[in-house]
């Protein structure tokens, strides 16, 4: 009953400025859905449309069975946590949390029960009498979440709730939000972020949005799926490049032919590689892009089939792993190797690019279908 369905949703600011295009999306009961994408791709706009704060769009939005397009924000049974918390500065923590319930004429003892309960869950009981300006960033964040909890919403909406916190607190609050989701399994959550780590850590489902030309051509949604689906099976170059850090290496190549084990491609730098995808739609000699993630390039002793040999330009050590910057060939590469990697600038090194970890994109940047039986 807490699912959210968007069908054929389009939104523009002014006549010639489309922001959201052709969004069809189902968020299931109790699902934790993350809207991810670069700045300006319309994540907040889409979230605010679900909240009812943005109107004047085409298409339909349903919460549960009910179409909410004409329903006031307060009657949608959603609660929202804003990036800057938006606590009422002139009300105590208690009143901030109680405000919405008072507006809804909830009985006094019920208000008190719910506020106390939320305060207990979020461990802010000692702060109930404070004013917001006397709270730290993390405490304000909890109050903002508390204000959402007391309303017992069907849907929690978060717009970059952690981006004003420092790095350590962000990781901590991230796990608290995951706990919150476990404590309220029936409620769905939509969480907006541009931080892929947050998205990977929290999401049941990631909705990756893109902007600009891609949005006009393919609609706002670049790909929807479980975090690891997006990581392992990106549908296009944008998704492949957006997820993962450092970003996936892209190498220009030409399609040689389809073989039993997959598509055979020749890199500009001369190597031949096989990628387990179905390239039968491609003409021989078509230009394609090969993608391989830095963490999948494994150092090997000697050049062999399915390896790339390059000159080491620089190495960055992080203790647990190292980034190896490689030159030579047609385009620079980055490899992420465990430990210190035993390499230094000036070395010549070979890296295996395991077939199962390679991705192939056609001339339009669309991933070729994988043959996962291989």
């Amino acid at each position, binding site marked *: 009953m807490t699912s959210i369905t968007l069908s054929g949703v389009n939104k523009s600011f002014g006549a010639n400025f489309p922001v959201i295009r052709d969004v069809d999306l189902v968020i299931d009961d109790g699902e934790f859905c993350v809207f991810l994408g670069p700045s300006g791709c319309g994540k907040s706009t889409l979230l605010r449309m679900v*909240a*009812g*704060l943005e109107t004047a769009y085409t298409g339909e939005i349903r919460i549960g069975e009910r179409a909410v397009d004409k329903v*006031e*924000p*307060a009657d949608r049974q*959603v*609660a*929202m946590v*804003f*990036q*800057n918390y*938006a606590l*009422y*500065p*002139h009300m105590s923590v208690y009143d901030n949390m109680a*405000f*919405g319930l008072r*507006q*809804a004429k909830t009985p006094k003892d019920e208000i008190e029960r719910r506020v106390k309960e939320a305060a207990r869950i979020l461990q802010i009981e000692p702060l109930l009498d404070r004013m917001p300006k006397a709270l730290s960033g993390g405490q304000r964040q909890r109050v903002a979440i508390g*204000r959402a909890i007391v309303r017992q919403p069907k849907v929690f909406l978060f717009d970059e709730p952690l981006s004003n916190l420092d790095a350590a607190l962000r990781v901590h609050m991230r796990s608290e939000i995951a706990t919150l989701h476990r404590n309220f399994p029936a409620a769905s959550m939509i969480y907006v972020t541009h931080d892929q780590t947050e998205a990977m850590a929290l999401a049941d489902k990631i909705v990756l949005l893109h902007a600009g030309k891609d949005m006009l051509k393919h609609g706002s949604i670049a790909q929807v799926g479980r975090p690891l689906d997006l990581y392992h099976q990106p549908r296009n170059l944008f998704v492949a490049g957006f997820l993962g850090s450092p970003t996936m290496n892209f190498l220009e190549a030409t399609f040689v032919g389809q073989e039993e084990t997959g598509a055979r491609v020749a890199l500009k730098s001369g190597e031949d590689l096989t990628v387990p995808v179905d390239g039968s739609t491609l003409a021989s000699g078509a230009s394609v892009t090969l993608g391989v993630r830095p963490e999948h390039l494994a150092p090997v002793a000697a050049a062999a089939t399915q390896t790339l040999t390059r000159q080491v330009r620089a190495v960055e050590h992080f203790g647990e792993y190292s980034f190896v910057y490689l030159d030579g060939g047609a385009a620079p590469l980055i490899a992420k190797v465990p430990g210190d990697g035993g390499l230094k600038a000036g070395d010549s090194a070979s890296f295996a690019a395991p077939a199962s970890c390679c991705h192939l994109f056609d001339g339009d940047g669309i991933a070729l279908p994988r043959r996962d039986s291989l």
Partner: protein
Amino acid sequence: MASSTTARIVRPVAVPVLGLIWLAVTTMPFLFMVMTTFKTQQESYSSSVWALPEALDFVNYRAVLAGPFLTYLKNSVMVVGISVTLIVLISAMAAFAFARMRFRLNDALFGLIVAGMIVPIHITLVPIYLMTRDMGLYDSPFALVGPYVATSLPISIFILTEFMRQIPKELEEAARLDGCGPFAIFFKVFFPLSGPGLSTVAIYNAIMLWNEFIFAYVLTSSTSTRTLPLAIWDYQGQYSSNIPAILAVVTLTSLPLIVAYAFGQEKIVKGMMAGSLKG
């Protein structure tokens, strides 16, 4: 070198010295006024202007208070109180609409109202006098409320609109999600959050209206309907040569403002700064 000399010597010395001179310039007349109220009429002629009074004698105050002074005071408190309340309420509501609501004529109407600030009061005197007379309000203290509110609204709306534009839009949205309509958003969020702006507007207008003379002079005529600035005028006729008595009237008239300013000063300054700093 030159700049460090400025920083080390000139500034720490010059600023306090100039401050003290300014303090003297502004408090001298005030001291003279208060001192003289304790002198008798005789004394004020014979003694030097800056001589201390011979005794701390409240005779002038007693004489003034024995007259209709309290009636003037009551009228002033009533007229200013009602006017300022209306000004604050109306300008806050208008400012909320201008700052927060999207409607077609928003900018045009705001411009029109702000343009009202440049209309000189004096050209409105005759029409307002005629209107007041036709409405049967002539020579009633309530005749003053309309002109007072009308002439104060432009600047008040201007100040409060700027103030409310600074309030984050997320607060409004949070309130909408909490179930507030426009009125609840205004009264429960924007009005209380505009506190410093509202007190600026209230105190500024209270001072202006407390001292307002020309409308009061034109629209009222009897002692029982007139406000304090006219008390000074009327007493001047009555006590024509009793300078200490006239100054006692002036002192009593400014006393409420001085007290109000002493308590509200911090808020006024804060309110006037808020617009410029928070942006």
